[in-house]
């Protein structure tokens, strides 16, 4: 039995106010289990990013519950949500969002620094994370000197350096060519082998379906499919 590391129960989220208000999520329930790579697929405007933001503790649900590592985060104040994020969640973004003025090693070390981990171990962890994504020779490179694939690898190193229980990835392959995209998904699949960690990927890209243990499909703010799969690619 795989442990549930994050779950959303009957989550409703409305965005905007007055006449412009829309219901982006209309009662979504999701549970992410350790050791699983879950894909969330759906057309534009279906609520993927909103669900990712709610699971990522960046948006509070209008109704429903969100639990991270067993703790209910609904109703927490912004600073408390930030604490939940830094202790439990790693993020990977479509456009990497690396700090252009920091080296790969410094970018990877950032989540530890915001946690207050500033010992020599933090440096070792950042370098080990970069080695794990195949960038042992790029510690001192700045993002401008890295290819798109390499930048996304640094972003993955940054996401996992703090050993989070959940890694949330937003279209991680969208800006990459096929080869780099598959390589990145291979890394994410490796990360999802850890039974204490769930990986949740929002994507449009059908090429990465073979990496998934589970595929969720969302349309118009509702989950319309939840398929368990046998992972075919690692």
């Amino acid at each position, binding site marked *: 039995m795989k442990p549930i590391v994050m779950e959303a129960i009957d989550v409703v989220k409305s965005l905007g106010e007055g006449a412009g208000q829309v219901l982006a999520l209309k009662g979504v329930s999701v549970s992410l289990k350790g050791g699983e790579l879950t894909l969330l697929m759906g057309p534009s405007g279906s609520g993927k990013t909103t669900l990712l933001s709610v699971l990522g503790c960046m948006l509070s649900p209008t109704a429903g519950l969100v639990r991270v590592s067993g703790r209910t985060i609904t109703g927490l104040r912004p600073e408390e949500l*930030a604490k939940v994020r830094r202790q439990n969640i790693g993020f990977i973004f479509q456009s990497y969002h690396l700090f252009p003025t920091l080296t790969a090693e*410094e970018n990877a070390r950032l989540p530890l620094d915001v946690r207050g981990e500033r010992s020599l171990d933090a440096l070792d962890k950042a370098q080990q994370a970069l080695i794990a994504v195949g960038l042992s020779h790029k*510690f001192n490179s700045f993002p401008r000197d890295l290819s798109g694939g390499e930048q996304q690898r640094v972003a993955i190193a940054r996401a996992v350096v703090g050993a989070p229980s959940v890694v949330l990835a937003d279209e991680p392959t969208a800006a990459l060519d096929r080869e780099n995209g598959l390589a990145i998904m291979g890394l994410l699949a490796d990360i999802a082998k850890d039974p204490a960690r769930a990986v949740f990927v929002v994507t449009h890209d059908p090429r990465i379906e073979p990496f998934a243990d589970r595929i969720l499909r969302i349309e118009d703010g509702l989950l319309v499919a939840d398929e368990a799969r046998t992972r075919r690619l690692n």
Partner: protein
Amino acid sequence: MHDTAHQHGIRKGRRKILRIPLILILASRNLFHDRIRFVATIVGIVFSVVLVTVQLGLFVSCQRMITATIERARADLWIVPTGAKSFEDTNLLDGQERFHALAIPGIADVVPLVTGYATWHKPDGGTTIIFTVGFDPGKVGLQPWNLIEGGVDDLLTPNGVIVDRSYFTRLGISYIGQQAEISGQRVRVVALTNLIRSFTTAPFVFTTRERARTFLRAPSGDSNTYFLVQVSPGADIAAIRADLSRNLNDAEVITPQEFRSRSLSQWLYGTGAGAALIGGAILGVIVGTVIVAQTLYSSTKDHLNEFATLRAIGSSAFYIHQVILCQAFLSALIGFSIAAVLGLLIVRATKNAALPVIMTPNLTLGLFVLTVVMCALSAISAIIKVTRIDPAVVFNR
């Protein structure tokens, strides 16, 4: 081989992490990233701090000029004409005060001073107003200081006066031994001082008390402008003051500190000179704050995406505030360092000017603190901006 090189890399990095916190690295690189904006920030701080330095330096200079004679005088108490507002007041005491004072136990000596304005006739024609200070050369009361040629004893020669070298042009003289006239009486310059300046712009001319009395056409007798009261070691100054005050008419007994405050109040605050200098300094601080605030704000706006990413990966608002404050502090440090060098050059350049800019260690420290506070205040608008960041925007960019 690769591992060895890698281990070496880690060891190299270990030293680095001990030296520079990541917040400082991020702040400094954000700051230096846009060099034009960085230069604009530093120029703003430098101009602001130099302006404040000059204004406050002149303020200190004025303060010292106004109070120099009072601070140089050896007196535990001053007997002054009632209502005397500054050292440059010219009312006379009738002289009985000295005898009253000497009759009080605990008073060791009472040293008279005669001061007042007179007209100096230049050797080549023309006149200028001077401020005469008459003292007894044999008494330790108030004597000219910073003597660079001649001595106080030279006043014992006929018609001797001591002037300050910086007023040579004003007095129409150019060397020691030259003769002129004061109030129609011949005088001869017997000694020179350096940098004893007068806030009233009337040059100080030191001479014997008797000679000063004739320059000022003071009534004969024991009339004097001030009496410097020197108490015996261990005597109760407050009790002596009270005792002395009871016995005096048309005269007050005040402490040097009170006389100093009165003089400052009269010249620096009463004339508006102090307000103008302080006003200029405040203006400098405001201009500096606005410039730094503007550049910090625009820098923060440019790095908003990064701050949103920081927030998204879980940084506290305080962590981001530290980055911005670090940028402000670095700007302050660099700007102040350059301004301090310029300030020192200005101090050196005005050393012999009529109104020199003065820097003291306390003033320098105060200016540094002011610069840091100014930059920290400037960071407020940027901090408000990042405080409102919605971390979820990182998914849309």
